[in-house]
């Protein structure tokens, strides 16, 4: 049985919503009733059916519409996709990873046939049927990273590893939580994380870097991050902040349920075989407050997390203007009962 792809938008009329099945598989990121930074990295292994971990590269009902939104962003601002000259090989590695994962996990939607370097790729949801020579950039309509990530949900950072550090030397970033690839490209791990409050002094980045530089091929890892977004807008870039920033002032007690979204990033980390680069897909999942509270446990827990979040984190995540309104709205779903441990909806 294939995926029932939705036709929807992430801008203008914002017709995005989750089906009941998609709500149940939402990757709720809080395993307890409070949140603070941690090096919350774990092995990225296949998980139970009907979760976002069922396959290592998740394709869901928003796939086609997210790819249409990405194409619109890139047409408007090509600087969202950049690759420094030494990163082309890593781009081919990434193309191989995504094509093989998709074709194995979703054979009804994707197929890859390889005869030496002669590859044949079929992407049925997007109507793509291309033959190309692996390693020969002239046989694809875009560079290898751009080509395959225009067909893959989530942002992708491709990190070169040298001098005991990781360098943000290539990427495609159209669904970001307020950071600029164009500004950060070429930076090392500490530099591009420099604006993050508190975590440096907690030693988070030193430990994370140590872990990431030791990731082995075939042993990917994952972690969650989260923020909130007003309206189901994927492109919350700093580039367009002067256009969408005003959304943050539009939250009222009446519209919280539809307008306010929890935005969860599932970040995974993969060693690439030829280039020894790391690829870091940042997959974004959105859920409306009305959808979230269909799980009583999630409603109680998210109320407590948001209410007790340290002010510095709320400020950094850009929640300050509407946090109180959302906390009050969520409080009607929190009877004070204890929540069970773990991520699931009960």
């Amino acid at each position: 049985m294939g995926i029932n792809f939705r036709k929807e938008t992430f801008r203008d009329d914002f017709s995005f919503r989750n089906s009941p099945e998609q709500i149940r598989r939402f990757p709720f990121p809080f395993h307890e009733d409070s949140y603070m930074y941690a090096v919350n990295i774990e092995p990225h292994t296949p998980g139970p059916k009907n979760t976002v971990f069922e396959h290592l590269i998740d394709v869901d009902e928003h796939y086609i519409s997210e790819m249409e939104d990405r194409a619109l962003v890139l047409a408007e601002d090509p600087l969202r996709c950049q690759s420094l000259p030494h990163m082309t090989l890593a781009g081919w590695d990434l193309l191989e990873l995504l094509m093989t994962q998709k074709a194995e996990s979703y054979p009804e939607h994707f197929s890859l046939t390889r005869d030496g370097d002669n590859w044949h790729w079929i992407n049925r949801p997007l109507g793509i049927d291309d033959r190309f020579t692996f390693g020969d950039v002239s046989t694809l309509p875009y560079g290898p990273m751009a080509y395959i990530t225009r067909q893959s949900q989530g942002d992708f950072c491709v990190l070169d590893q040298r001098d005991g550090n990781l360098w943000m030397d290539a990427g495609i970033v159209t669904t970001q939580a307020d950071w600029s690839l164009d500004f950060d490209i070429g930076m090392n791990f500490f530099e591009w994380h420099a604006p993050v409050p508190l975590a440096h002094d907690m030693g988070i980045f030193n430990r994370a870097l140590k872990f990431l530089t030791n990731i082995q091929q075939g042993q990917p890892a994952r972690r969650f991050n989260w923020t909130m977004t007003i309206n189901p807008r994927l492109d919350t870039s700093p580039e367009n902040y002067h256009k969408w920033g005003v959304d943050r002032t539009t939250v009222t007690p009446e519209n919280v349920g539809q307008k306010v979204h929890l935005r969860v990033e599932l970040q995974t980390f993969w060693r690439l075989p030829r280039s020894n680069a790391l690829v870091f897909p940042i997959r974004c999942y959105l859920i409306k407050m009305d959808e979230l509270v269909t799980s009583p446990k999630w409603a109680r827990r998210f109320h407590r997390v948001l209410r007790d979040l340290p002010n510095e984190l709320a400020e950094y995540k850009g929640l300050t203007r509407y946090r109180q309104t959302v906390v009050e709205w969520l409080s009607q779903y929190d009877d004070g009962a204890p929540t069970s441990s773990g991520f699931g909806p009960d």
Partner: protein
Amino acid sequence: MTAKTILSRPVYGTLSPQPGRNHLFVADAEGAAAILDMAKATPEGFFADAHIMFVPDDTGTNYVEAVKSLQPARFYQGPTIAAALPRLRQTLATAHMGLRIYLAGSEGLIGQAMQAAMEAGFDPSSIQTEHRGSLARRVQCVHCKGITENVTTQPVTCSHCGLLLLVRDHYSRRLAAFQGVCINAEDPTESPQAEEIFR
């Protein structure tokens, strides 16, 4: 001295003579004083094969004769950093192995010369830097990508698109610029008073 801020921002040191024969100095304004201070501790003949590029900016003729008296093999005086950059790039592109680079003066000068050196393949950690004088910043507008030079106020109006920008401490060596982000995006009626804080 610049206060310690965040990890993307370069840390500057104090110029010190490096082993080797070929030395390239690039300085603006008060940066000349850093070269002169370093020269007090250099061995005999240190400047015999040196190349000094100097943009006096608002220091006028204050330092020019003193720098010339170091008797470098080549001395260049430029009217602005922008005017000096093509010459710098050509110098770096044709440099011999073992060239030692010293940058002194404003953050804008150090940043742009560092950018040119990185593009020519020099390792930034091998380059001597010393900050002197103005704290004025080069700022890239994250929205229109235009760079506004010599920013001394917080916030500042982008000289390209006109948005009112918060000047962040987040710094890109590749762009040799700090990041500017619209300060009143969430409420365009807010218009914070500009204060002169990067002098």
